[in-house]
């Protein structure tokens, strides 16, 4: 099997349909002005023009999924007594994530460390992840907010992908990254790609150079002192609305809720995305809340991505710089700006205290 190939643009649909022969394909589909990852069906219009509004995270880690179903059953000889029967389904079809971006694919590797590389691995995520082939489109250049190169990524990095495709000469140069990816390359519409390799490389270099890096060279350590400063957080995050946009759009956020949803004698225990930006995420029944204020919640989000997670996983950052949280934040909060302050070697909590005496809620 070749590991380099070329796909003319007009064969995209054919390619996606071939990928869908024995698998469910999730592709960025245009609906109105929105691009959403949807299960591909021929009536849908795929768009690779810009990164999708949502990352493809939901293809492997659905926003809502059933962990188990339960059914109450009366015992035949003792109608007073109820038995419970539990059912679990992890029999997921093969899937392909088509047309995500390198930051999206890298997002899965962030979740892998938490959900797979542990003694209590998540069987749903793990199974879907194993079953999924990721065919990624390299970016021609950044869109508003992107900063992948600042967090070890880039518009052409292959981490997390099985195949990467680069736009060249009215088509795409394809490169297999893994064995799963090589299998894709044997599809009949894939032509020989060797002659496009140099051009693709040049395109990728150009794209990489165009992405901003918000963090100056060497500024990669969070100032613990500034991180602990309530004044700092009060200042930078007073405008936040505590919504879930930044976390729900993030390719690496994985926090979830578990709830039982019952209908008379049957029901499901479901898990659904949750967000550390929500007030009730940590609210205890007693009314005690370790993170009652939005600046504490925001500190957790930034801390988790740039401080706690790296501490736990050998320095790996839990942000791939996709820029969605910046682009779509209702009040244009810029996480890269905030991390920039925290990483500034000259970071000084006093500079923030002077501006405001009282960090409000």
């Amino acid at each position: 099997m070749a590991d380099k190939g070329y796909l003319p643009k007009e064969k995209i649909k054919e390619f996606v349909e071939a990928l869908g022969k024995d698998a469910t394909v999730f592709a960025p589909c245009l609906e109105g002005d929105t691009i959403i990852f949807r299960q591909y069906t021929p009536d849908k219009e795929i768009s690779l023009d810009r990164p999708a509004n949502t990352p493809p995270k939901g293809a492997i880690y659905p926003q809502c999924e059933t962990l188990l179903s339960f059914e109450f059953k009366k015992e035949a000889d003792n109608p007073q007594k109820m038995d419970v029967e539990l059912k679990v389904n992890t029999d997921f079809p093969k899937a392909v994530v088509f047309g995500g971006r390198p930051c999206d694919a890298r997002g899965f590797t962030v979740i892998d460390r938490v959900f797979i590389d542990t003694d209590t691995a998540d069987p749903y995520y793990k199974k879907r992840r194993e079953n999924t082939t990721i065919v990624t489109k390299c970016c021609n250049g950044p869109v508003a907010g992107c900063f992948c190169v600042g967090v070890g990524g880039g518009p052409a990095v292959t981490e997390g992908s099985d195949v990467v495709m680069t736009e060249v000469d009215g088509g795409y140069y394809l490169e297999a990254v893994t064995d799963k990816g090589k299998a894709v390359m044997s599809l009949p519409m894939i032509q020989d790609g060797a002659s496009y390799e140099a051009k693709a490389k040049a395109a990728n270099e150009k794209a990489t150079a165009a992405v901003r890096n918000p963090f100056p060279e060497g500024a990669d350590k969070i100032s613990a002192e500034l991180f602990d400063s309530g004044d700092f957080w009060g200042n930078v995050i007073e405008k936040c609305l505590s919504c879930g946009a930044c976390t729900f759009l993030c390719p690496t956020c994985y926090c979830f809720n578990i709830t039982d949803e019952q209908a008379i004698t049957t029901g499901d225990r479901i898990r659904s995305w949750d967000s550390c930006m929500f007030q009730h995420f940590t609210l205890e029944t007693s009314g005690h809340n370790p993170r009652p204020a939005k600046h504490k919640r925001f500190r957790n989000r930034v801390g988790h991505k740039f401080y706690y997670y790296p501490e736990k996983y050998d320095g790996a950052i839990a942000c791939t710089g996709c820029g969605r949280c910046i682009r779509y934040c209702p009040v244009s909060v810029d996480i890269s700006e905030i991390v920039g302050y925290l990483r500034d070697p000259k970071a000084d909590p006093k500079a923030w205290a002077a501006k405001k005496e009282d960090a409000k809620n």
Partner: protein
Amino acid sequence: MSTQKLKEIIKQVLPDVEAVICWQEGFDKLNVTPIFITSPEQAEKVVWNPLCAQNLASYLPSQKKKVAVAVKGCDSRTIVQYMQEGLIDRNNVVIIGIPCKGIISKKKVQKAIGNEPVEDVSFTEGSVKVKTPSGEKTFAIADVCPSKCTSCQYPTPIVYDQLTADPIQSDKPAESVYADVAELEGKTLEERKAYFLSQFDKCIRCYACRNACPMCVCQDSCIAETRDPHWITQKLSLDEKLMFHMIHALHLAGRCVECGECERVCPMEIPVAKLKKKINKEMKELFDYIPGVNPEDKPPMYIFNVDEAKIKEHKL
């Protein structure tokens, strides 16, 4: 220009207030972001231009101390509604009013420039010039404004303590306000249903629309997430999404100040304000009430009358 005047006013009111809420340049030239000004130096960062879409009045109910806030004409309706509903103490707010000739929808501009990164943005009377790596493009503001501006009746704030420029009058006919709703009403029920379902199907339940809504008062206790009552599950089905949006819309009946924030902030580009506008139109027809225009009014859903002039069925 009025930015200069705005800065002057801010510096003047700053000693009296805990903070002045205004806009500053955001992460790129096409974005502004709110700033809570507490020092005269910060006042220098302030911007006023058609990118200043965020309705800053929304921050008022959560402020514990006296603050000043910069508002456009449409934003001032939020304050008027807060006054009607007793959600703020007017004495604790200094309103800096900005007469506004229309703002820009960032989404519309981004679409028009093919989502390229923006290098620079500049304004001349009535138009905006956007520079991207592939060149410059100029748009008439009227072509890239949110729909609320095309029928704006209140370009000058309804309530204010200071104005940054001379008041301006609306040149838009009053009938234009509900033109988009009329268009919707022209469709069959089935068509309307299909339209809303296809829109809400994109919802990811991030609740940005709810949290950005100035009149959404429950916020953290929203029934979309409570277990008691357990009206809405955490499933991602269209039913649940629709239920959430219907409830948001109904809770805004006769309260929605038509600021358009819910729609502006939706990351999935769902026209969330449309339902609310439709309900507002009904409320106007039933109760002769327009939210957020007169501080002395009471929202119709706050009042109970045994007889309602236009609701015949209710005659006892």
